[in-house]
């Protein structure tokens, strides 16, 4: 191949590579936007449908809210900005999960606290049970001298009686 032909081929290769890279980046961006949108749909409650997020609800208002979320994402708004936009209009009840501040912190802290306290209680109960089995076992001959003395005295007394009176 002559020199101009080689240059032309290289240029063509570069253009194809550039276009395919751009295409891949666009598809990736689209997937990322879709994922972000899905995540936000699941974080917003439908103001009309009890217990349903806008992702689950089929109401027209939810559809309009989904479209608005998507549009705001495309305009470059962040997840937090979009959620805040809806909170300002519908109040905190529009959020599927309560915010982690103020009185709402109780909702987040309580389960952790219950698990922690429950773990401690469980540990204490198990420990007590294990110790309880040791206590109910036979007393160690080396630790309880009062029993030894009592039986030793009885044994010595019986032996003495036996020596004095013999076996009858």
């Amino acid at each position: 191949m002559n020199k101009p032909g080689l240059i032309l081929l290289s240029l063509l290769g570069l253009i194809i590579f550039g276009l395919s890279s751009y295409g891949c980046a666009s598809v990736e961006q689209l997937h990322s936007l879709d994922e972000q949108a899905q995540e936000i749909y699941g974080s917003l409650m439908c103001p009309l449908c009890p217990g349903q997020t806008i992702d689950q609800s089929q109401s027209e208002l939810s559809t309009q809210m989904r479209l608005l979320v998507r549009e705001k994402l495309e305009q470059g708004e962040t997840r937090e900005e979009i959620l805040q936009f809806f909170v300002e209009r519908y109040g905190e009840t529009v959020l599927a999960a309560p915010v982690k501040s103020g009185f709402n912190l109780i909702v987040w802290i309580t389960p952790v606290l219950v698990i922690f306290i429950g773990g401690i209680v469980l540990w204490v109960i198990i420990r007590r049970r294990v110790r309880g089995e040791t206590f109910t076992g036979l007393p160690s001959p080396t630790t309880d001298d009062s029993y030894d003395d009592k039986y030793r005295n009885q044994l010595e007394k019986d032996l003495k009686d036996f020596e004095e009176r013999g076996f009858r």
Partner: protein
Amino acid sequence: MNIRRFLVPGIVILVIAGFGALLAAGLLIKEPLTGASGAARVNRPASDFTLSLFSGGEITLSSLRGNPVVINFWASWCQPCREEALGLEKTWQLYRDRGVTFIGVDIQDKEEDALAFIEEFGITYPNGPDPNGRITIDYGVGGIPITFFIDREGIIVSRWVGAVSEKILMESIEELLE
């Protein structure tokens, strides 16, 4: 000895009773979802919008600054909207010369049904659709009908969820005019 014996069961009972009370409160205090419609917007500036009117032309809220505005969200399929329609028109006729503007925002509706509704009740104040729901969402509207009362400074002073009576309309407008 006795205190230690009853301490743990006492705490357990108190915790269970607390959670029980919360559950009962949650079940008993049932404010309808529609009741919360627009609540977050009260005492805040009314979001500006431009409404394309059924009668042609358009109206922009900010252009009405300096005058009290009553915005009613409605739909032709909504029964309470039918109940309030005549009263709204009557009150509009009563106050239009005193600088009060009424705006009807038709939501989640078909245009032909909306036009039939307007004709049926003889509504003459500006009315238009909100096809993509932007005004609906901007005003935090869930359930309809809902009526917002906006003062001369453009602040949403109050709202009424459900069919609004002429009495409520007049009382609220008089407050705006004070």
